[in-house]
């Protein structure tokens, strides 16, 4: 995601008052449903001695196998004439008690092991975790069976077996968290203040680990109820006359064909119990572990949504050019507030020209670049207005099929970090060949030949051998060359480069810039070059547009802007560039932070950080005033105006 959206998302999380845990939980309909069912089952099970139920163990051979809804036996009777409703409720009581006890035993011992292993580290850790790994090398149920085989069948033994096989889950989870916590400052502080390891573990670490214990409990308790019921079903758990849901099911199975209700009903109860626990558990996990919350993982669709509403689409400008962006607006809707990442941007790119877009992180420059071909993730992004014309064709209005044809064809991208933008599981050859094959109907031999040519073109030595290399086997500079080769695969008219050199070290940076400059001259492709670095701009770009808070604040020919910046922000940005041979030059960081784009102030967005701010800067909309065809500034009191009109 773009930096703007990310910082915006982070902001919204912080600013919105966090509702209470219970409130969050109740917001989740499914979790609430689970809680209600679970509470009802628990209440009925707890109240069993108080309810007017038949004795669950009294046999009545005359009334055997009565069907459901019989007189006096709402759920019928089993093969010994015992009342099924009563047995069901008492059985639920047993199953719940056994499942919960097993969970608590597993949680206690597992967490203890995890805490000790994570805190002690070293040999203790290795010893405990090897043991845990050993236990986990067994299939879960099989180990429980082996333990029951040793201890002998019985409900209590089944409980121990299930608890034991679940200890590793707790130990592993808790160890991971403890390991992280025990390296933290507050633990160091406690250690220095002379607290004993036990005190540190239980007073400092445990409270921080508790949510993880609760999450692990909520995700395993359903399993444990299922598995203890399973052991009883096999006849290895509860022994008659004692009955839990599993053993009721096991007994009922013998008369499945004659009286199915005897086995169907306890099974339904197990299902209802486990399902409600799982629903509730998922809710608990979502609340305690926001990282996993369903909404946080939203899948971006293939193309940015275009919602231009009723506002008229601006026509192409008279200047023409290959790429013509008119009043483009891109927004992100996150947590109910709208972030105007790009607030009306005009750009014009002629054939063979290189235009630089400069700005700090969060200025909207990357979003501008992504918006053009609809690569801004939706949700949460959308294009809210304006147009982008490629040779007169409105890119926001064309079909998906058409945009796919243009992507990588007429308009190609080079992104910032070549390690994350190349697919790690495909060789660079496969990725380049794919880029060629998608747009050109060539035989595979021709595609391969072309791929080798491309790699040689971007000065990769041993191009043929490199085809079978994976991205992680190449250096950062080589990877970026591969990305550039991929972008050049189909003779793009426009190359959009989003900070292509930022992730590289300086010498590689200049090689890549030289390469791009050379390619531009050879192929006459227009380049839209996004960067935060005026030094890079001066090396490559014909013209430059400076962005701040989603809008262009100054534009002009590179030399002119560098020599005589008119916007105070541009001036500050240029001051940030170190100049070789001028060590005495002060490198001022610009004080303050850019405004958040969901709540832009009236007037100039830079006013709060500007040393020349005047009262009138803080009201109305300040226009981008063009002093010539190419030169413009969005400032009421621009610098360096003498000499220009």
């Amino acid at each position: 995601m773009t930096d703007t959206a990310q910082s915006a998302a982070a902001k919204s999380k912080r600013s919105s008052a966090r509702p209470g845990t219970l409130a969050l939980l109740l917001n989740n309909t499914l979790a609430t449903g689970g809680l209600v069912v679970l509470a009802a089952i628990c209440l009925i099970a707890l109240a069993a001695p108080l309810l007017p139920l038949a004795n669950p163990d009294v046999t009545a051979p005359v009334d055997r196998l009565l069907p459901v809804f019989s007189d006096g036996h709402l759920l019928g009777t089993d093969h010994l004439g015992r009342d099924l409703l009563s047995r069901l409720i008492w059985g639920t009581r047993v199953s719940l008690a056994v499942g919960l006890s097993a969970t608590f035993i597993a949680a206690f011992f597992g967490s203890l092991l995890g805490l000790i292993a994570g805190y002690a580290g070293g040999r203790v850790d290795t010893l405990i975790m090897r043991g845990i790994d050993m236990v986990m090398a067994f299939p879960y149920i099989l180990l429980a069976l082996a333990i029951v085989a040793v201890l002998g069948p019985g409900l209590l033994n089944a409980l121990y077996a299930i608890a034991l096989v679940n200890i590793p889950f707790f130990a592993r989870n808790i160890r991971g968290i403890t390991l992280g916590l025990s390296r933290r400052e507050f633990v160091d502080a406690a250690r220095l203040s002379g607290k004993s390891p036990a005190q540190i573990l239980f007073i400092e670490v445990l409270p921080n680990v508790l949510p993880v214990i609760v999450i692990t409990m909520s995700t395993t308790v359903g399993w444990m109820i299922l598995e203890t019921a399973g052991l009883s079903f096999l006849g290895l758990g509860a022994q008659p006359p004692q009955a839990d849901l599993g053993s009721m099911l096991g007994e009922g199975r013998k008369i499945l064909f004659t009286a199915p209700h005897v086995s169907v009903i306890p099974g339904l109860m197990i299902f209802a119990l486990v399902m409600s626990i799982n629903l509730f558990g998922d809710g608990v996990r979502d609340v305690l572990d926001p990282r996993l919350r369903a909404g946080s993982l939203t899948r971006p669709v293939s193309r940015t949504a275009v919602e231009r509403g009723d506002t008229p689409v601006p026509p192409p400008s008279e200047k023409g050019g290959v790429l013509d962006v008119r009043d483009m607006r891109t927004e992100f809707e996150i947590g109910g507030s709208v972030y105007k990442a790009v607030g009306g941007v005009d750009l014009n790119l002629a054939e063979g020209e290189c235009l630089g877009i400069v700005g700090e992180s969060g200025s909207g420059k990357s979003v501008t670049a992504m918006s053009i071909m609809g690569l801004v993730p939706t949700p949460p992004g959308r294009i809210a207005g304006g147009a982008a014309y490629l040779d007169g064709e409105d890119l926001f209005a064309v079909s998906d099929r058409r945009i796919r044809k243009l992507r990588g064809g007429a308009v190609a991208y080079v992104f910032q970090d070549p390690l994350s933008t190349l697919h790690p599981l495909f060789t660079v050859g496969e990725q380049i060949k794919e880029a060629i094959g998608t747009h050109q109907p060539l035989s595979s031999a021709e595609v391969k030949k072309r791929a080798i040519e491309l790699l040689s073109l971007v000065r990769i030595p041993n191009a043929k051998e490199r085809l079978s290399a994976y991205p992680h086997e190449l250096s950062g500079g080589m990877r970026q060359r591969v990305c550039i080769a991929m972008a050049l695969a189909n003779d793009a008219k426009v190359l959009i480069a989003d900070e292509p050199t930022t992730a590289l070290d300086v010498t590689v940076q200049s090689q890549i810039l030289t390469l791009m400059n050379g390619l531009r001259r050879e192929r006459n492709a227009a380049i839209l070059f996004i960067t935060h670095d005026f030094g890079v701009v001066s090396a490559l770009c014909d013209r430059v547009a400076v962005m701040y808070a989603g809008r262009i604040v100054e534009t002009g020919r590179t030399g002119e802007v560098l020599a005589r910046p008119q916007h105070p922000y541009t001036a500050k940005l240029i001051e940030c560039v170190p100049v070789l041979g001028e060590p005495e030059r002060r490198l001022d960081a610009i004080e303050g932070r850019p405004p958040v784009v969901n709540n832009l102030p009236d007037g100039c967005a830079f006013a709060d950080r500007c040393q020349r701010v005047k009262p009138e800067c803080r009201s109305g909309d300040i226009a981008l005033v063009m002093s010539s065809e190419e030169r413009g500034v969005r400032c009421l009191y621009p610098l360096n105006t003498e000499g220009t009109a």
Partner: protein
Amino acid sequence: MAGYIARRLLAAIPVLFGLTIIVFLIMAMIPGDPATAILGSYATPENVAKLNRDLGLDKTLFEQYVIWIGNLFQGDLGRSYTLNRPVLDEVLERFSATLILAGTSLVLCSIFGLLAGIVSAVRQYGWADKVITLLVLIGISTPSFWLGLILILIFAVNLRLFPASGMYAIYGGGDLPDLIHHLTLPALTLSVVATGVIARLTRTAMLEVLRQDYIRTARAKGLSERKVIYKHAFKSALVGVVPVIGIQAGFVIGGAVYIETVFQWPGIGSMLVTAISTRDLLLVQGGVLVVAATYVLFNLLADVVQTLLDPRLR
């Protein structure tokens, strides 16, 4: 690559040894004196001592283990006293039936789980996603032994489409169609929970991958959405899902205990349940050992597949 597989195989050897130690210790911890159990409570102390000597029980635990593991290497897992035949013969015979059942289920749950997860992620918040999410929740909450009974009631008793139990028809069976006919219900039942787990995980993994920068690159190249999802995103998601399929192999083999009991499938699970009830501990020991070793091998296989998919792990 071959070197990697060799290394992984070597690394599995200590794990397998650890398994034998645990299995041996579990059995050695059984309370009670085997000699007294065999000879009855009226046996003379001399006879008990003699039998203990004959069984090697007067030796230290370590010596006993060495003898036991030596026999193990010679394919001798002892003799089942209830069946009066070598444990290994019985275990191997039963094991093939379990492997057919669990293997089929594993294939089914992988296919259905991956498909459901992908559809769910691609149609996030759409009706297909909601239906799949609900089905997954129901699937992982359903006791498989109960589901088996319900399926028997519906498909075997009422509709008479599939047999209720066994592996082959008693008369005239024994060929592949007959096996598939018998296999359908138990294999489906056994795969339900694992399908749910795999589907859930695939959905999350796909959603995670679809946010990655290289997916944006794939789109910027002009690839069709089908290629973006099924080639670029799915391959990455699979790297995360494959180890979970390996772990699910353990749950499927373990879950076979229930399913084999419900469907009277002549596998190792139903053998274990019977052996536990009849206290035929050598049989339990042999069965547990073979199944646990298989699980280790399944995980090894998952590791190797993961490495084949992800060159960074090599």
